[in-house]
């Protein structure tokens, strides 16, 4: 094997024999190879799948390599593309580099040279991705601090509004119109208070405090936060919470974070609608609590399954996810002495695709 996890490569060339030979030789070295014999197929494949590196022949019929490169880069600016040129025309290679190719290689292809270039390209991509994610994480962290600060500030006027409303409600006759209006002010003030509490609850998750945790209550509090997101995404919720669930010891806020991260991913996977199933029950003769969170999304692709708990691994676009959600969840569950695992089926594997996360937490007597 060339690396810890095999690199996914897309080879694009109109010469089928060349493509087959190169594929076989690279597969023998542990690479996972997809092929395309023309620009349009290549562009479609690159849209569909996250390749680590694309090796692209520049001279092809229909749309040529440069045009293909342009379109791939337009869809995915961070894609690493190495161009191959049959005629060793420096101009074409320079053009390709200008369009964002990471490197070029002359045909006939020297395999070890190609592999070396692919590895360098992959390393550059990884480094760039980590840098981007770090910057994003830092931005998120400061956003969290900002949100917490604002939430605190809002508490002040909210206290005054709710306080005066409370006092006035005592002075106004219950059958008057003003009483109803004041009740509306109070209700909306309470709504704002709840929003602030939720915001603070999540901004505070780093503060670890062990306490008795009612898992069902915890799950419900998370669902309350994402309720509107679920509705707008046409996701229905199937709740199956055990009525006799033992209390566990842990951090309420951190466990909220775990469920939030998993549910958030589930929502992201169910673009256009679906069903979110959340179930809890006692297992192992009441010694453990098990929580299952299942979506009806497309499932996790085979090659991504080993990486999902890795920090900074994400299938979301830059800016949409930090790649930290599941790694944070893993860390928190591990700290609580629990386990986290998943079952997943893609559309190719099942008529009912989806992903189910299974968390168990110990019940401390």
């Amino acid at each position: 094997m060339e690396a810890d996890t095999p690199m996914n490569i897309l080879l694009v060339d109109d010469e089928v024999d060349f493509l087959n030979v190169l594929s076989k030789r690279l597969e023998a070295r542990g690479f996972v190879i997809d092929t395309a014999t023309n620009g349009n197929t290549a562009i479609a494949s690159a849209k569909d799948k996250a390749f680590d590196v694309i090796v692209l022949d520049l001279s092809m019929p229909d749309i040529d390599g440069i045009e293909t490169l342009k379109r791939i880069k337009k869809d995915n600016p961070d894609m690493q593309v190495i161009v191959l040129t049959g005629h060793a025309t420096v101009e074409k290679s320079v053009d390709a580099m200008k369009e964002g190719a990471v490197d070029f290689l002359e045909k006939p292809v020297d395999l070890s040279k190609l592999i070396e270039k692919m590895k360098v390209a992959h390393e550059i991509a990884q480094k760039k991705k980590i840098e981007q994610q770090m910057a994003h994480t830092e931005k998120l962290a400061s956003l969290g601090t900002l949100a917490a600060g604002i939430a605190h500030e809002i508490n002040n006027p909210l206290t005054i509004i709710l306080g005066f409303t409370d006092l006035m409600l005592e002075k106004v006759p219950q059958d008057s119109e003003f009483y109803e209006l004041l009740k509306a002010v109070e209700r909306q003030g309470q709504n704002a208070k709840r929003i602030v509490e939720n915001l603070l609850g999540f901004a505070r998750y780093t503060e670890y405090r062990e306490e008795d945790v009612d898992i069902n209550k915890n799950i419900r509090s998370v669902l309350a936060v994402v309720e509107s997101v679920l509705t707008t995404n046409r996701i229905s919720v199937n709740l199956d919470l055990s009525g006799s669930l033992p209390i566990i010891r842990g951090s309420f806020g951190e466990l909220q974070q775990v469920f939030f991260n998993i549910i958030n991913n589930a929502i992201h996977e169910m673009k256009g609608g679906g069903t979110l199933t959340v179930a809890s029950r006692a297992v192992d003769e009441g010694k453990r609590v098990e929580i299952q969170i299942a979506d009806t999304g497309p499932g996790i692709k085979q090659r991504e399954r080993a990486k999902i708990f890795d920090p900074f691994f994400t299938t979301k676009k830059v800016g949409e996810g930090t790649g930290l959600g599941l790694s944070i969840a893993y860390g928190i569950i591990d700290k609580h002495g629990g386990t986290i695992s998943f079952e997943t089926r893609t559309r190719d594997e099942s008529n009912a695709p989806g992903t189910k996360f299974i968390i168990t937490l110990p019940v401390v007597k």
Partner: protein
Amino acid sequence: MPEKLLIVDDEPDMLRLLQMIVREKTAYEVTTTNNPLEALGLARKGGFDLLITDLKMPGLDGIELLKTVREFDADIPIIIITAFATSEAADAAMEKNAFDFITKPFRKEQILFTIEKAIKWLRTQRENKMLRESLGKEPSQ
């Protein structure tokens, strides 16, 4: 004689709310100020039985006010009102010998309950002191 409360908050509306709650729901006398330095001066003059202060104020914050008042008055119960519902803020207040702390947004019942608790505690302290003095000796503990 009803007990005298000194309330300090930099936000006049908050002050008005607290004053209204105390005036309408208790028999205690209330003095308010939105200037923490003025509050310090008033506390120094004496005559107050309970001090209620906001935590975050410009010039002199609640913790500093608490610390300074404690230098000349070890007994007066002090309630801190804080928007920072974190354990650190609470720890800092309790460390400096605050009687209790209340987090915003609060309900008037919470304020009233905490005030009652503080006044009861104060009365017990005073009774104990009187009893001790009448016995003419310091307690063993």
